[in-house]
């Protein structure tokens, strides 16, 4: 029923495109046009202005679809004109109360972005297999670039603009709009978005970007866990690797601090992808060559610093489980949960969906449990050490300096006598081989750059189940680089340290190929 109004609005937008295309047009002409449509009431009232922007979006997209075959540059003229219109309107927009102009501009921009999302959603739904992401990609890409050029010099407002785009891209994530997937990854890794968000002061843009990256991994899971990769998945996986390599090179601290969130959603079959995340280390850190003969990891200064973990790593633990674990770590009195891990950690059968990575276990819960128990174990060791140091300083005279100078690292025997290790021991013996594999993988995920977690988890090895521990480490080493530093030093220790008598174990000779593999890995290591 509003076809007449639509016609009029379409005419106004066509007029704008003409103004935009005139080589002599400048900001004065643009401003005059905005005033004229304001006087016509086009921007007054939410309903008509929403309809106007909806018409602009649809016309831009349709003109692209119509002309794309003949001439791409001409095909984008409608979209580019629309970008200019939005940027000009935001520039002219001011707070009706005259108080907070930048806030008002951002709110206005957010409204316009949401109208574009609605048109995209409708096109995605209606056109399905013929849905073309390109005009929408161009629209958002143009807005990102223009907003950077116009507002980067006002950091406060610019960050709000980036947040508005981040929220929009979260809405447009591939799980909701799979037809926009490749355009979406182009946008979240765009030069006017990803680095700007990650470089915002004090890392205040990191949480938003981490959310977007988790959306990408969650979407990838069903395609990666399955069997043969299709071309679509292979292209998406390669694009993901390229984006991650930029992050590893330019923003390694971001990957370090959020490694836990990403490992929760990266399928455990994607070993290289996960290694890429776990290989990140802070740029101000100099990693000693893991192959240094007689490397004394315990003596590294960083080995006692806890790593920054910005992910909320306890969110997957139920309140009751957390309190049970806390009680046990404090009292070490036997508790029921120690005897039925299989049940606690298994996924409820009708919760097993494509996004659980095909496992019958709740992988995020296992990852949270391991890190939570480990962090508490480390804290307990430090607490007991400072007690001992308190005692040993009073008795250093009679028992010599050995204790007083005891290397501040805890020996394996000390670690083995803790409540945390009881829990790990139970997990190793109670779980079936799949559960144990996931549990050991969660531990291996902590073998990163030198920090107290790397140190703790690299020594928390058990005599039993060595074969599985070896397998978990080995499968992460035989894939193409990069390999996390903590993984390398742990495997080197396992192979070299006579205490583990590694080569005496039958499984190292179980098969000629395996034997060759061990020899080649040990040679390279």
């Amino acid at each position, binding site marked *: 029923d509003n076809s007449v109004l639509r016609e009029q609005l379409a005419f106004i937008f066509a007029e704008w495109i003409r103004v935009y295309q005139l080589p002599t047009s400048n900001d004065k002409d643009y401003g005059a046009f905005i005033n004229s449509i304001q006087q016509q009431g086009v921007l007054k009232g939410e309903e008509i202005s929403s309809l106007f922007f909806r018409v602009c979006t649809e016309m831009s997209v349709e003109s692209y679809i119509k002309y794309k075959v003949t001439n791409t540059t001409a095909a984008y003229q409608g979209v580019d004109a629309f970008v200019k219109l939005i940027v000009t309107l935001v520039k002219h927009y001011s707070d009706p109360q005259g108080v907070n102009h930048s806030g008002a501009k951002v709110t206005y921009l957010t409204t316009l972005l949401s109208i574009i999302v609605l048109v995209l959603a409708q096109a995605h739904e209606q056109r399905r297999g013929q849905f073309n992401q390109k005009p929408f990609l161009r629209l958002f890409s143009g807005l990102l670039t223009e907003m*950077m*050029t116009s507002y980067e010099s006002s950091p406060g407002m610019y960050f709000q603009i980036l947040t508005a785009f981040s929220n929009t891209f979260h809405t447009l994530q591939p799980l909701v709009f799979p037809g926009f997937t490749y355009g979406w990854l182009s946008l979240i890794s765009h*030069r006017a978005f990803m680095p700007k968000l990650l470089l915002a002061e004090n890392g205040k843009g990191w949480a938003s970007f981490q959310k977007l990256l988790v959306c990408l991994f969650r979407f990838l899971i069903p395609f990666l866990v399955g069997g043969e990769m299709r071309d679509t998945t292979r292209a998406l996986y390669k694009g993901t690797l390229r984006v991650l390599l930029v992050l590893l090179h330019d923003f390694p601290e971001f990957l370090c601090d959020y490694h836990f969130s990403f490992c929760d959603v990266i399928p455990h079959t994607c070993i290289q992808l996960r290694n890429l995340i776990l290989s990140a280390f802070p740029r101000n850190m100099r990693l000693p060559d893991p192959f240094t003969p007689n490397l004394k990891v315990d003596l590294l200064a960083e080995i006692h610093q806890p790593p920054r973990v910005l992910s909320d790593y306890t969110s997957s633990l139920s309140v009751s489980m957390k309190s049970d674990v806390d009680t046990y770590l404090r009292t070490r009195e036997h508790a029921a949960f120690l005897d039925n891990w299989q049940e606690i950690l298994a996924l409820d059968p009708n919760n097993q969906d494509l996004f659980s990575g095909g496992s019958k276990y709740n992988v995020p819960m296992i990852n949270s449990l391991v890190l939570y128990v480990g962090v508490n174990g480390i804290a307990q060791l430090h607490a007991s050490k400072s007690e001992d140091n308190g005692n040993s300083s009073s008795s250093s005279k009679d028992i010599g300096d050995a204790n007083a100078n005891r290397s501040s690292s805890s020996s394996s025997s000390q670690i083995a006598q803790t409540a945390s290790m009881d829990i790990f021991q139970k997990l190793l013996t109670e779980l079936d081989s799949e559960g144990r594999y996931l549990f050991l993988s969660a531990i291996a995920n902590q073998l990163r750059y030198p920090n107290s977690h790397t140190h703790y988890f690299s020594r928390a090895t058990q005599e039993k189940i060595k074969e599985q521990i070896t397998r978990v480490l080995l499968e992460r080493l035989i894939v193409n680089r*990069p390999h996390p530093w903590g993984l390398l030093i742990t495997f080197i220790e396992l192979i070299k340290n006579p205490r583990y008598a590694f080569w005496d174990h039958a499984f190292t000779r179980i098969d000629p190929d395996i034997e060759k593999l061990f020899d080649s890995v040990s040679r390279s290591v």
Partner: protein
Amino acid sequence: LGRDLTTLGLSLNSAEPLYGTFASPWFEVPTSADVEAEFHVPACYNV
């Protein structure tokens, strides 16, 4: 076994940040000169 990540068109040993010339996840641009340099025009140049 994953893949050789040095073949993905990114100069991983670059001393410069990669994001300034990262054009897209889907294609590499032959040289960084083809990636339009980032520029910023002060608001007062808008005469």
